[in-house]
């Protein structure tokens, strides 16, 4: 799984390099074309080498190596599940900030996240309010910065 992941990352770089190369050829002056073109070229070469190493490595072994097996054991589904869960939490937090602003998103996220992590109701509520107070104190009062109010309640 880890080897496949490494291959995917190498392919990501390869696609990025090809895309950069095509895009840079469309720029107007050669001064603005040259550097992105060279850098894209280097990315393509290096990504191909990296992808080649992975494909060659996988093909040569045929079956998953001991290293790969142990990695699957250690990093397998539990880690992937945890990764998916935390990504959902972070995305939900961003969406909440975007819709309702920091003043609502901070206590709601902190409370529900801590509850989900098995913290006591009062602890979670206290921490959520304390965090809101801290952010309001530091950013709005201390740094005189206006925190985002969200598209639902804000002026934007």
């Amino acid at each position, binding site marked *: 799984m880890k080897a496949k992941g490494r291959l995917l990352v190498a392919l990501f770089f390869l696609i*990025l390099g090809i895309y950069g190369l095509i*895009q840079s050829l469309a720029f107007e002056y050669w001064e603005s074309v040259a550097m992105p073109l060279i*850098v894209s070229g280097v990315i393509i070469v290096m990504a191909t080498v990296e992808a080649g190493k992975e494909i060659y490595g996988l093909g040569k072994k045929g079956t998953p190596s001991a290293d790969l097996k142990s990695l699957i054991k250690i990093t397998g589904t539990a880690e992937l599940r*945890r990764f998916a869960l935390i*990504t959902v939490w972070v995305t939900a937090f961003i969406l909440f900030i975007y819709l309702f602003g920091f003043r609502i998103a901070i206590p709601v996220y902190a409370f529900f996240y801590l509850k989900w992590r098995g913290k006591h109701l009062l602890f979670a509520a206290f921490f959520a309010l304390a*965090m809101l107070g801290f952010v309001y104190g530091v950013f709005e009062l201390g740094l005189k910065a206006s925190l985002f109010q969200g598209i639902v309640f804000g002026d934007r």
Partner: protein
Amino acid sequence: MLEAYASALETLFQPINLAVLLAAVIFGLIVGVIPGISGLIALSLLLPFIFNMPLEIALILIIALHAVVFTGGSISAILLNLPGTAPNAATSLDGYPMSQRGEGARAIGASVTSSMFGGVIPVFFALAMIPAIMPMIMAFGQPEMAALVLLGLSFLGILSSGSFTKGILSGMLGLMISFIGYHSITGVHRFSYGTAFLFDGIEIIPLVLGLFGLSELLYLFMKGQPTIALKTVDARLTDVFEGAKDVWRHKWLWFRSSVIGYIIGVIPGIGAEVATWICYGQAKQTSKYPEKFGTGVVEGVIAPEAANNGKEAGSLLTTMALGIPGSTVMVIILAALLMVGITPGPTMMDEHLPLALTLLLGIALANIVGGIICLFAAPYLARIASVNLDFISTGVLILIFAGVFTVTLAPLNFLVVLCFGLLGLAMKLYGYSRPALILGFVLGASFENYIWLSVKIYGPLFFFRPIPMVLLAIIFLMVGFPYLRKAFPRLQGRSMRA
């Protein structure tokens, strides 16, 4: 020159700067003690706060925090066998067995004293080196700077990821990201797709917070958080001072380790982890009882701790004088310098010499203050390591997004943070160098400018000058050496014997 030293001391000892330094030291020690929360996260989180601060205060805050992170990390390494930061892993080898034998306080005394003086003495080496290197770096023109940036990218790319291709790929990705937006030479908008949001390019704060802050949180959660069983530590001050005396008893080992740490710090791209293991190894090799290492000998604590704090002065000197970050954390410090309007490199040493000296002296003072706090408060600091990481990660996540919005005022940057957080996690998991990406990003625009100015002034063969040729030769040697070793096995044999 003397005026610059006097001005630096005057700045550092202003009450407000001292107060900031003290606060940063306490924060740095706390961050260091907590396993999993690295100095990188703390420094990334500080970036939005320093944005509108006076220059000296902002930089003292960052430097002082970073200077003591490893000192704090040694406490949890010794008492809990959980290195607060990666370079403290070597300390736990002998520190933890000492703690199990009931000599935890002595180990902390030795570690803190070694860290404290190990962080101070190299500052004087750096201060002494500045007058010597000034004429050399002042001779640097555009071609030399272009070659230097390339050298920095190669060093950091290769050394921080352990793989040449992955290191270069990371640095090149950083360069590509830096090309997004308005091109200052031609006025062309590149990779911005007509979106106003991308006209000025990607901003540094969302990039750093995503790549180092969010990705570390995702990683921490993904790997599962360690449960730390809190132990009460019976630390008598007499035992702590016994540890301090141990450093005096092994003063040559301590001095050697500080010097090695400093030299490793000066070389760009080599992390504190390397410095600590090299010093641990040399302590073992030169010991009269090497077989006892790993069972709880105090020399095994003194050597790595002197090295990891000792390297910071060297790293900072390289970062400020050449604009090449001496270590991963120095990339963030480089970004911070650029954010507050200072371009590290010869210009900084010429136009902001007192500030550069203030930062070096700040490292020394932060180490002294941090050392004194640790000597008296280590057992209490150790309790912080048992704080539940759920609370910390929730707080850090909220601060990341609040900080990003405060500086950029653009909600779209939340997505930028998320994207770079995921990219950073993938890079961390698959061995790509995140510092090289940031370095490519922060140096991308100036690298392109150096290249075009060099072409305009000296023609396309601008690199046929002595210094760029030497620097390019170093890059080729560095890149080619592993292949040469494979091609000529005799080289490998020689290097192994050496």
